[in-house]
């Protein structure tokens, strides 16, 4: 991994997605984004060799974040995934079952998410 880790952010709330992308770009990440699970999954397939980490919302149109995590962890078990969720207990436990590396509940501070991302990337190396 070079100095600019490649992160894919998936969230269907435009403001959240924009804010996350902006923050991670500022922090010198190479940022990719998708607003639903299907587009996210297609991007993962396309970028699987260069992608370093995925941050995904859990409740998404078509393919949920839970499904994205489950598919990624089956195909690319070493690719770390952070689940972010604004919903109650249920999807959160589903994300853990799907083996998300970390589940963060909204609202969270952007620096806390970035720190967690950095730590997971370090663990991966």
């Amino acid at each position: 991994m070079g100095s600019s880790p490649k992160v894919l952010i998936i969230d269907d709330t435009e403001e959240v997605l924009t804010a996350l992308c902006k923050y991670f770009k500022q922090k010198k990440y190479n940022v990719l984004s998708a607003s639903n699970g299907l587009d996210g999954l297609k991007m993962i397939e396309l970028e699987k060799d260069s992608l370093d980490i995925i941050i995904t919302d859990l409740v998404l149109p078509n393919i949920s974040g839970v499904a994205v995590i489950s598919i990624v962890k089956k195909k690319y078990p070493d690719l770390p995934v952070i689940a972010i969720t604004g919903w109650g207990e249920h999807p959160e436990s589903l994300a853990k079952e799907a083996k998300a590396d970390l589940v963060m509940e909204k609202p969270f501070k952007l620096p806390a998410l970035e720190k967690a991302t950095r730590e997971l990337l370090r663990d991966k190396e």
Partner: protein
Amino acid sequence: MGVPIIGISDSIQRIKELVAHVAHTGLNTVISGESGVGKEVVAQSLYQKSPRLGKPFVKINCAALPEGLLESELFGYERGAFTGAEQKRRGKFQLAHGGVLLLDEIGDMPMALQAKLLHVLQSGEFSPLGSEKDFKTDTWVIAATNHDLKLDISEGKFREDLYYRLNIIKVYISPLRERPEDIVPLIEYYVEDYASQLGGNNIQNPDPEVIERLRTYHWPGNVRELQNVLKRMLVLGDHERIVDELFETHTAQSDNDGVPSERSGPANAASLVDFKAYDPMNNGAFSLKKVKKKAVDQVEKEVISYVLQKTDWNRSKASKILKVSYKTLLNKISELEITPPNA
């Protein structure tokens, strides 16, 4: 092979793409959309493209059975589990093992059973009624619904935890009126399909004018309604009249404020029930059964009249074509008051 997903609209293309990406996963799936949009076609397509093809595809309609029966149908029972359980019986979960279980009309599943279903989905195990043993199940659960489950949750009719457990993959099929570009490909597919089923050489394909009119209709009953109209056209032949009737029904419906334009079900409802004069909301004599009887009578009368006309009222020949006994046909003729042209 089942029926393919037909359509060129963006939303149908997107569904095909989605199916291709998730069919291998076996993750719980909910297919939603109005009645008649083709939810089962999508479920079949997921199954056809999955590694589970060749294993069982089992379907159960959650709205069609009372709670107790639905439970025993789903999970099975042991001998003596309840009065009348003389033999043990395998449930749909067992029958669908290794394959797909389609839970149709999941929104109508009673709450108590939703809890049991949730338990099965969480644990991957179930036990038949009266059994002490738990069975492992490897079943791809696909649920279908025309409900807005989110709304059902807010009204306390659907469990939120079950909702999230099921909605790992979501497929929404939009109503046909929102994707008119799919109508012509659907017509082409089904005309060919039905023509080969009917096997006759006298099949008259709808001409471009008729197709154009069908394309502009709003199809409240979606693809299923389109299928029925095409079947009628190919069997009865009088295309113009059938399309005229379709639009007359449509006008009758839009004239009526009491009938919602969405989810209004079969297009012919207004021709069977005069909602203004005979409002089901305020009429004790109204019953669904009566409407059903009237609908069936209407269609039977039309088809029998047609066949009788074509056979020059040769009742014996007509009964063979209709595949009913001679006696049944005579009964129907008198019951439906079908009269020979020169009577």
